[in-house]
């Protein structure tokens, strides 16, 4: 069953040109020139129930704008959106009862109050019966291990503890779909790992569909099974994480340390990235060439040390981002 269906979605922001100096006075009584920016440019995609989707892109790519349109916060300029069968801009309140949102950059809890007071407040605005709410808080506070600080004011909690509380608050009304907008931002590696595991757990055990945005590739790699890369308002890639790795992880990075300084000749599929004394960093495109070809470029006796690694996913994503920007240029 499709949880999200997006067809030809567009969002443009219109602003007025600002003039400086003499120009400012010239345009005082004139109609100001309009600047139209396409934040989301004709995108279409769908998400199946139970999926964990990474929605990523560089800053200003249009990912947060898309999420805000999916949650009914922003109105699309054109196109169609259906989330859980609702039109978000027309049925925002109905939709909000079925979805949850966690924003890493913005606290949604009342900071002067305790986490417990916040949960009781959230329960009442989502019309959850008191008995059911208390059971739900008990259940989630065990899963998220927040019992020790549930009665402390939110402002006194660490960032990791706060994020756990944000997640509990977003789950109280049993949402079918959860939006995570950079939830691990600013967290230390341990807190990140805990949060990632919890998100995975929500997806696998509770069957909640996850839409995840993050600049941290580790988050995406660990949590999501599918990835959509957006840049300049357009979808650059929509594929499974498995395929992304399979197709793009064809380049190997070979670091060799030789006994003597030799000249390694570049050829198709073999590129010397760095050469210093007897140390070489070489990129080998396995679709074009093979390791044998590389090993043929120097004598096996000259080899002191060798290490082979795959291109980090982060670099692949950077390449995809850059590719999109180059096309724009």
């Amino acid at each position, binding site marked *: 069953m499709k949880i999200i269906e997006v067809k030809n979605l567009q969002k443009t922001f219109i602003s007025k040109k600002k003039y400086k100096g003499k120009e400012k006075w010239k345009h005082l009584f004139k109609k100001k020139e309009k600047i139209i920016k396409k934040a989301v440019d004709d995108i279409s995609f769908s998400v199946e129930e139970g999926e964990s989707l990474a929605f990523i892109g560089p800053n200003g790519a249009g990912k947060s*704008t898309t999420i805000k349109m999916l949650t009914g916060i922003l109105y699309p300029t054109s196109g169609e959106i259906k989330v859980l069968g609702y039109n978000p801009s027309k049925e925002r309140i109905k939709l909000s009862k079925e979805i949850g949102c966690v924003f890493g950059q913005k606290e949604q809890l009342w900071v002067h109050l305790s986490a417990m007071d916040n949960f009781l407040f959230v329960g009442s605005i989502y019309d959850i019966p008191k008995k059911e709410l208390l059971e739900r808080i008990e259940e989630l506070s065990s899963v998220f291990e927040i019992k020790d600080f549930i009665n402390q004011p939110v402002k006194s909690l660490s960032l990791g503890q706060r994020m756990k509380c944000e997640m509990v608050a977003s789950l109280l009304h049993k949402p079918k779909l959860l939006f995570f907008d950079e939830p691990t931002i600013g967290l230390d590696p341990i807190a990140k790992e805990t949060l990632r595991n919890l998100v995975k757990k929500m997806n696998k055990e509770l069957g909640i569909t996850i839409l995840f945005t993050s600049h941290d590739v580790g988050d995406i790699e660990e949590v999501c099974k599918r990835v959509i890369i957006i840049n300049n308002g357009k979808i650059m890639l929509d594929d499974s994480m498995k395929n992304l790795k399979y197709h793009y992880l064809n380049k190997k990075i070979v670091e060799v340390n030789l006994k003597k300084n030799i000249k390694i000749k570049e050829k198709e599929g073999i590129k010397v990235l760095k050469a210093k004394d007897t140390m070489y960093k070489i990129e080998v495109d396995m679709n074009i060439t093979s390791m044998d070809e590389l090993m043929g470029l120097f004598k096996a006796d000259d080899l002191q040390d060798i290490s082979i690694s795959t291109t980090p996913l982060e670099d692949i994503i950077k390449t995809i981002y850059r590719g999109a920007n180059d096309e724009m240029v």
Partner: protein
Amino acid sequence: MMKWFNKYLSVFKTSFKQEKDTTLNIVFRAVSFLIMIYIFFQLWNYIYGQNGTSQIIKGYSLEQMIWYLIITELLYYTCRYGLIVKEISDEIKNGNIAYKLNKPYNYYLYQITSFMAKSCFSLIFLLPIAVIMEFGFVGIVPSFTWAQIFPCLLSVLLSTFLSWTIYSIIGLISFWIQDSTPFTWIFSKFVMLLGLFFPVEFFPNWLQPFIKYSPIYSIMSGPASLVANFSWKLFAQVAISQTVWAFVFILVGIGIYNLGKRRVTANGG
């Protein structure tokens, strides 16, 4: 309907609890309130003293005038309009409104309820001060009966609620214009001139009906006159006028909010 009521009651209770952290701010406001009342008491005492303190001016004795003034000042201080219009305005301008729009409530009603809680919290501090000062300066209001306490209190609360329906609309104007402060300034000055300092009877005859049918009367002069010169007839008039205006402004506010929310421009993250 009950669920709807409980939802906003919860917003009220939670905002009220959160407000406890601002207790020190309110204590300072109370000091400023005390000074203001003292200055105006001296001023009216002087005016009445010119013609003997038993003088009646436009139907008001000195005692009634001071009661009127303290109630209007109390209403003015309770409603922290500048701060709160700024809050709505800033939320719209910086896009933080987005984080409140993804919840199952109406943002406009949420803000009114939240502000109402803040005002009620201020009222807890300022009302006893106002009453103590009254007794200290002029004593009990003439023709006081215990039965008038509840209707007067209700009228004060309705006045605060009405203020918020109006000031929240001013805040919502930020959907269209960069800065709604001038509107706040203009409206608050009208409230000051036409209600805070003088009862409606002090204005020219031709102007009185306009003031009486305006929301400013329901916010300021109405409840203050009721305390100073209570009658059940006046209570009915003031309460009806406050309720009708509140109803009108809520409808206008919801309409403006529904039009404005299409203009939300929350930038990404």
